[in-house]
């Protein structure tokens, strides 16, 4: 398969079909929908055309920092003496902070050199004080709240609902009604997000549209292929088998369609990810994940949302200040983001990709008795890309007016979601979030 075919994925899939001798009895039945970017499987979109009015070019990458990243040591309020009084052992020395402009009252942790480089190129926006009312300090519950954009933490994921609304016009509250349990006539793999990891995050789970998740491309394939002579070839033939003679509305036909979808997706993704990186990437799991995402974008996959996760941020003990556990994590984070955007720029795709990093909560202002910090509340959120509003976009929350030792949030995270949905993904944020939240604009005006 010549490389240039990967640029036009629709042509790749079509050629694959022709080579394997399948006839396209019905476009909606046999065209794998996962990668075509349209859940409705309309023939025109599969051949590379676009549905009028839908902005298919823009991509959102979500970087989830799991465990509760300590915002105060990430975006350091070095100009506030309360910070150093509260953190005698783990505070970041003022002289080591990476300044963000003369007037800024905050700076970056020194390990975030990667982010600083991007910041100096105008590719980083920092929103401080992001949280929500009645903060929950349980990992599970708070993460669910961020994933569902609902303070009860229940329901579908916010991006799942985005995909549902794109595909089927659903908004939150309309989907999943008990009286409409009928199976969708479309394959469930169509048009969703890609998550790197063992299971897809709740944020990507919709009612109609489901995401794809895999830890590495090797795992997104059948593991029985090497069981014995001829087994792999037989499987490949089975996976391509057209399902003749089946009632197209039956569950059997649905399974055949999804199996075909899965096979083509698997081959496409593995091929995409097998290409050598265009720039060097540092070590670490986040770097590995973003490298895969960059490869998939380079290969022309029409996926609009990618989701990656980095763990280890629950620094209750021995967090360290300028150096130590937390610093190491931040260094990996910064290095990975920098390589990611260098890669995208080399591809010419950087303008299409907006990356948002968040954590389920920040940490308490005062350090604890174990040279660490406990679960807190509001924290900074960062957005990356040439299209973001660059700079420190909001003020640091007060360190004097605390809520039992925790920061009070100043910007509801759903306001950031509103901006991402409306301004970046051109979607109806109010419908998807089932409510009006004051937008926290993170996207540059055109």
């Amino acid at each position, binding site marked *: 398969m010549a490389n240039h075919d990967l640029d036009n994925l629709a042509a790749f899939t079509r050629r694959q079909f022709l080579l394997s001798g399948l006839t396209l009895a019905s476009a909606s039945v046999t065209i794998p929908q*996962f990668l075509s970017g349209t859940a409705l499987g309309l023939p025109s979109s599969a051949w590379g055309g676009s549905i009028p009015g839908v902005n298919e070019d823009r991509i959102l990458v979500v970087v989830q920092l799991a465990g509760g990243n300590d915002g105060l040591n990430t975006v350091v309020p070095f100009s506030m003496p309360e910070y150093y009084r509260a953190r005698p052992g783990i505070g970041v020395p003022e002289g080591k902070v990476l300044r963000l402009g003369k007037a800024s009252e905050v700076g970056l942790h020194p390990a975030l050199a990667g982010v600083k480089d991007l910041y100096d190129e105008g590719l980083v926006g920092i929103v401080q004080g992001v949280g929500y009312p009645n903060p929950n300090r349980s990992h*599970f519950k708070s993460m669910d709240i961020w994933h569902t954009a609902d303070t009860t933490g*229940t*329901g579908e994921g916010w991006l799942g609902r985005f995909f549902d609304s794109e595909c089927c016009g659903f908004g939150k509250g309309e989907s*999943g*009604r*008990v*009286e409409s*349990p*009928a*199976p*969708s*006539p479309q*394959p*469930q*793999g169509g048009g*969703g997000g890609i998550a790197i990891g*063992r*299971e*897809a995050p709740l944020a990507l789970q919709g009612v109609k549209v*489901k*995401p*794809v998740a*895999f830890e590495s491309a090797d*795992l*997104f*394939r*059948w*593991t*029985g292929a090497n*069981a*014995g*002579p*001829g*087994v792999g070839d*037989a*499987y490949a*033939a*089975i*996976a391509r*088998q*057209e*399902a003749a*003679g*089946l*009632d197209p*509305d*039956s*569950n*059997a036909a*649905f*399974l*055949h369609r*999804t*199996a075909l*979808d*899965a096979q083509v*997706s*698997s081959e496409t993704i593995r091929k995409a990810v097998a290409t050598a990186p265009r720039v060097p990437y540092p070590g670490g799991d986040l770097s590995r994940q973003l490298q895969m995402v960059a490869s998939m974008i380079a290969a022309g996959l029409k996926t609009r949302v990618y989701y990656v996760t980095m763990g280890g941020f629950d620094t209750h003990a021995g967090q360290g200040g300028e150096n130590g556990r937390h610093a190491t994590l931040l260094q990996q984070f910064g290095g990975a983001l920098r390589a990611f955007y260098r890669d995208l720029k080399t591809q010419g795709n950087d303008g299409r990709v907006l990356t948002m990093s968040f954590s389920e909560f920040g940490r308490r202002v005062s350090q604890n*008795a174990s040279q660490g910090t406990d679960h807190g509340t509001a924290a900074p959120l960062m957005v990356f890309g040439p299209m973001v509003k660059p700079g420190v976009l909001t003020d640091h929350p007060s360190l004097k007016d605390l809520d039992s030792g925790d920061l009070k949030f100043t910007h509801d995270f759903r306001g950031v979601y509103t901006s991402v949905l409306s301004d970046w993904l051109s979607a109806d944020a109010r419908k998807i979030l089932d409510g009006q939240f004051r937008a926290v604009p993170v996207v540059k005006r055109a």
Partner: protein
Amino acid sequence: MPESGASVPPTPAPARAKGVGPRQPDNAVSNSLDPIRPDEFGIDEARHLINRAGFGGSPGQLRTLADWGPEKSVDYLLNYEQAPGEAIADDAFDADIMRPPSAEERQAQRRAAAARDEETLAQIRVRRQNAEQADREQVRAMQRWWLKRMIESGRPLEEKLTLFWHGHFATSYRTVEDSYLLFRQHRLFRAHAAGNFGELLFGIIRDPAMINYLDNNDSRKGKPNENLARELMELFSLGVGNYTEQDIKEGARALTGYTYRDNEFAFDRANHDGGNKAILGRVGSLDGEDFVRAILEKRECARFIATKLYRFFAHDHPSGRAALDRAAEPVIKGLADTLLRSRYELKPVLRRLFLSRHFYDRAIRDQQVKSPVQLLVGTIRSLNTPARDLKTLLDAANMMGQSLFFPPSVKGWDGGRSWINTSTLFVRQNTLVYLLTGKRPQGKDPLADDEPFDGVSLLEQLGLAYPEARETDLDARLDAVLRFTVGRADVPARDTLRAFLASRGPGPLDAPTLTHLILLISAIPEYQLC
């Protein structure tokens, strides 16, 4: 291939020797609740019955059921209290892990807080964290315990019905965070699984896990919480549109004071609103039991439950296939009538469904997407693969979307096509590879070589149910294997499978070849259905 040594049956197998064959046109779907005749009940029908009323069966079990005929088979599966089963002790799991602090402990905490005794407070916090950790481990142990029961049970329908009620009265550990309460709830479902639905409804309003899950523990006079009242009607008994917002409000008042203490239901009279109420046409100083009685009196309740049972045991409904939906309508109506006439006894309804001509129609057979649990337990039970590592299977089921004691919401598991997407399909296929070969996505089970899958024995056993398995002809044996594993021989993958077998050379099918054949069959789309 050597004779297995089992004697050939003296009489020929019943007349259903041929496979299911090509699909009939849709307009031939039976809508009849009349019972299937004994002469129409052969191996294929027995296989379908045990797939739905259980987790599939071995060839020997299919032979037995086919020989018994429909009535004896259904009664055996349904009256499972007569089959061997392992009792469950109250103390199978620890009731005290998440016990609330005692009066002395609360006092000690208050004193420490007042004295700003950080060390004591930290100790109390650590103790609490340890208890939470231990409880999370216990719920994992409960998952392994239940999965093991499903795999080994001599009462498969009991397990399957308990799973059904767990999905119907969905309650998640993620919210409740008390494994013993979920164990109690599990036993409630098990006790009445094939019993009386009314008892389940009366039981669920007093169930501590459900009371916790739907926030009824603090619901009190003057400040009722509507969550339990709403879901009781919307999701557990009547369905949307069969009650009003006023019924919810009044129902919530009736349930005030229904709480729990020390893992037991407790009625807090002081918090109960004993005033006059009007719920679903009933009037009076109604309490929770009166509320449930009002629900049970409505025909819509029988209809709603009959529909859910139909969806779980027969087919998605609506299915998107017009002829099937038309045929299912009178069937569901008939089942609802039976449920009402039997005053909510479940056995008559299940019996009627499992004996009906509609149930055995080709439009229903091998058309239901297997739940993750069905896929795994069914594979182990019917193919006799080793069970291997239960934790691995539970992780896999979780990735496939079904984690026992963790239903995704109060709506339970949607089931059907929602189990299937491009991700879960690979997890499903790869978990079957694991069961058959011990091979994990990365590396291999250390015990895999000691626990091989015995395809040779399976093939020998197959002859009990499918005589053509004993023939030397490659096609005949392939047909037998396909009929047993996926219900029909004429699957689209048949040519590929045949070519694969032929490529392995002439002569008897050896163990590796059989394992690889079954491996490939587990990877065809039809294997995801039962």
